[in-house]
């Protein structure tokens, strides 16, 4: 049932694609050289190409869009007013606010740490630089549950830092600081990578010139380095925000998803699914899905500008 509209879309696309291509080919002379020059324009929809395009579209629609569609239709089936009411309940409101606070903290911390780390890693040579870079890359391969476990081994009740934290009266595990730490772990690489990418690209010529002209390091940073990396920083921080909003496993393990205390938007969905609270689960999932899709629009916009220049 579902693949049908896709195949339809493909063939209309093919039909629309043919006429200009045909004229372009008709106008081209038959020499090899001119055919090469007009190659990008001389595109013809052969059966093989149509089949490949159709197969790709069907795959993407089945794997990516059908699940999305199921979420939308099921939320509508439950009833939008019921869903809105469920999301207005105090526990849902608390979870949403907690997720937003974590997102803002992640963005603020990564704005500072991301730029600082990127500068240190691109502009300084020191022993152990490779190890720091390896740690940053490694953080992407670690499963969220392992992140939760790792911090529990340190700050949990049997963790080796527990006595110290207990003496100071600081709770990390199953408390707000635990959520912050887990969010900072999962968001670490994004800003660093994007800012490093730009720093390597622009080189340090301008910074050198500024310094030669007598600008202090701070002045050079504010007037030269920061304006240069602005685009990378914005993209990195948007990725950070999206990642922070979507984190689940690490927050569940380290935070415990205690309703009204350590619950976030994602762990709220998990709890609501377990309790068969349909309106809350689907509503929150749709809300998070829509917000992350909008963030993706911003991300794609910045990415296009990055590859465009």
């Amino acid at each position, binding site marked *: 049932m579902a693949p049908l509209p896709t195949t339809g879309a493909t063939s209309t696309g093919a039909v629309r694609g043919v006429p200009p291509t045909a004229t372009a080919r008709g106008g081209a002379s038959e020499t090899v050289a001119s055919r090469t020059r007009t*190659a990008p324009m001389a*595109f013809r929809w052969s059966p093989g190409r149509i089949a490949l395009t159709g197969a790709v579209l069907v795959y993407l629609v089945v794997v990516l869009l059908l*699940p999305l569609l199921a*979420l939308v239709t099921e939320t509508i089936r439950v009833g939008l007013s019921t869903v809105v009411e469920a999301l207005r309940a105090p526990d849902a409101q608390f979870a949403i606010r907690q997720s937003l606070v974590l997102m803002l903290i992640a963005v603020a911390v990564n704005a500072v740490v991301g730029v600082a780390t990127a500068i240190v890693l691109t502009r300084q040579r020191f022993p152990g630089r490779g190890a720091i870079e390896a740690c940053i890359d490694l953080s992407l391969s670690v499963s*969220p549950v392992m992140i939760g476990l790792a911090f529990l*081994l340190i700050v949990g009740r049997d963790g080796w830092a527990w006595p110290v934290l207990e003496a100071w009266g600081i709770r990390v595990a199953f408390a707000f600081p635990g959520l912050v730490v887990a969010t900072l*772990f999962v968001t670490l690489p994004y800003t660093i990578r994007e800012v490093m990418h730009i720093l390597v690209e622009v080189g340090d010529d301008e910074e*050198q010139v500024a310094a030669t002209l007598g600008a202090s390091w701070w002045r050079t940073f504010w007037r030269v380095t920061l304006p240069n990396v602005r685009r990378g920083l914005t993209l990195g921080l948007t990725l950070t925000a999206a990642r922070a909003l979507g984190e689940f496993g690490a927050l569940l393990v380290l935070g415990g998803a205690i309703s009204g205390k350590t619950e976030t938007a994602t762990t709220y969905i998990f709890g609501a699914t377990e309790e068969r609270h349909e309106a809350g689960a689907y509503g929150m999932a749709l809300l998070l899905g829509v917000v992350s899709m909008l963030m993706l629009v911003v991300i794609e916009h910045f990415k296009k500008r990055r590859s465009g220049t």
Partner: protein
Amino acid sequence: MTARATAGPARGAVALRVAVCAYVGLLVALPLISIVIEGTSRGLAEFWSVVSASTARDAILLSLWTSAAVAVVNIVAGAGTAWVLHRYPIPGKAALSWMVDLPFAIPTLVTGVMLVLLFGPTRSVGRWFTAHGIEVLFAPPAIVLALAFISVPFVVRSVEPVLAELDRTEEEAAATLGASSMRTFWRVIIPALVPAIASGALQGFARSLAEFGAIVIVSGNIPHRTLTGAVYIFSEVEGGRPHAAAAASLVLLGAAILASALAWITMRRTVTAHGA
């Protein structure tokens, strides 16, 4: 003088370096070292007996084979998608490209909820599969579908820059020299794409091994059947057995690091081969 200028006043540069190292060290290195210590603290024999116990072993093997299966799917689907996106004048290309990146943005638990809604036994699509005797939800196919969703971008995004590079260089040269398009495809394009495809598939494999949110609510988590490595780790943590969780983590993390390292090496070889 110039070195001082770029690095800032020497003392400030060192302070910044120390702060960065401390942040990354405390946030990433220390927790990971804790897992290594916890997992191996009782000796290698104990480590082995924990990870080879039937529940742990089956969970790790399930993660490995489903991730590998999805990697194979991604080799075909990802390369095809990158090709169509890059070479064919299809309408709505921006929308399609946005769709490919969706899994990067959508929270994995939301992916899980979507799959439950699509394949649940009371839903239309799920009912059809049940009527035809095919189990999807709470069975291995659900795990494969969840992993297929989250790993869509990897091969596509690693192949695209290579395709863009190819446009300008080898292919044009081959065509000017009179090579047929099939010959160009097999002799020039495929050899250039293989490392990028392999690298993307390996990255997707590593990412799949780590997946938790999209799987935990669709797989049913039945030991020996649909309990994956990451969910096994979760259940051991919740059950108060951090040692078993840490041991299993080491195996999965080792496999993920190995795959990432291989991806990095294949990509680096492409870069040097094309750059030189």
